[in-house]
């Protein structure tokens, strides 16, 4: 399965934010639950807008949610 080099901490941040469900996060940023699943599995790199919305939802800078794997 092809994985993107854009890694993330979305799964951890969901659990740290009151065990938010994938569906709740999806509804909050206006995407489908399947897209959240794909982001968490690092099979899909979200658009910059969606990435910012996720960071805003968790109230953290975008760099704490997404990072680039240079290895």
């Amino acid at each position: 399965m092809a994985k993107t080099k854009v890694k993330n901490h979305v799964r951890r941040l969901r659990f740290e934010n009151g065990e938010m469900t994938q569906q709740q996060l999806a509804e909050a940023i206006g995407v489908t639950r399947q897209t959240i699943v794909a982001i968490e599995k690092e099979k899909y790199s979200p658009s910059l807008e969606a990435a910012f919305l996720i960071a805003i939802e968790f109230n953290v800078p975008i760099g704490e949610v997404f990072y680039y794997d240079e290895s």
Partner: protein
Amino acid sequence: MSFEEKSAWGSLLALALVSGWYFPKAIVIANTSPSAAPLIAISVIWIIAMIVILAVYHGVIALWGYDTDERDRLIELKADRVAAHVLSVSLLFIVGHVMLNLVDPSGDGIFPLAMAVWILSAMALAEAVKYIAQIIYYRVSA
């Protein structure tokens, strides 16, 4: 499974079923019938059948929600690109076939009908490839 993925599965199945009925008949008619009427008749049936099946199917799956997002749009664009290549190559083969057979040897006027069926086949094939590509992108990556 998202609405768009269900849509791709259903559309592929409907296309396979209806085209599986249509194209064998159309090829026989195009190569044997002296009139265009039978081919036009089954082509109209093909189009109406596709519209009805897809409308009912999408109406049913929409009951479970019909949200689409950026990932659905990206997958559709990538699948469209694959389908466009298939359509281009198919049409090139058809044009090549026409150029090699510019004059219908039988001279009975069937040739344009056969060409219409080949062009429709190319379009149906490209659509099928688009749905298959969408399903693969949903399952594997994107």
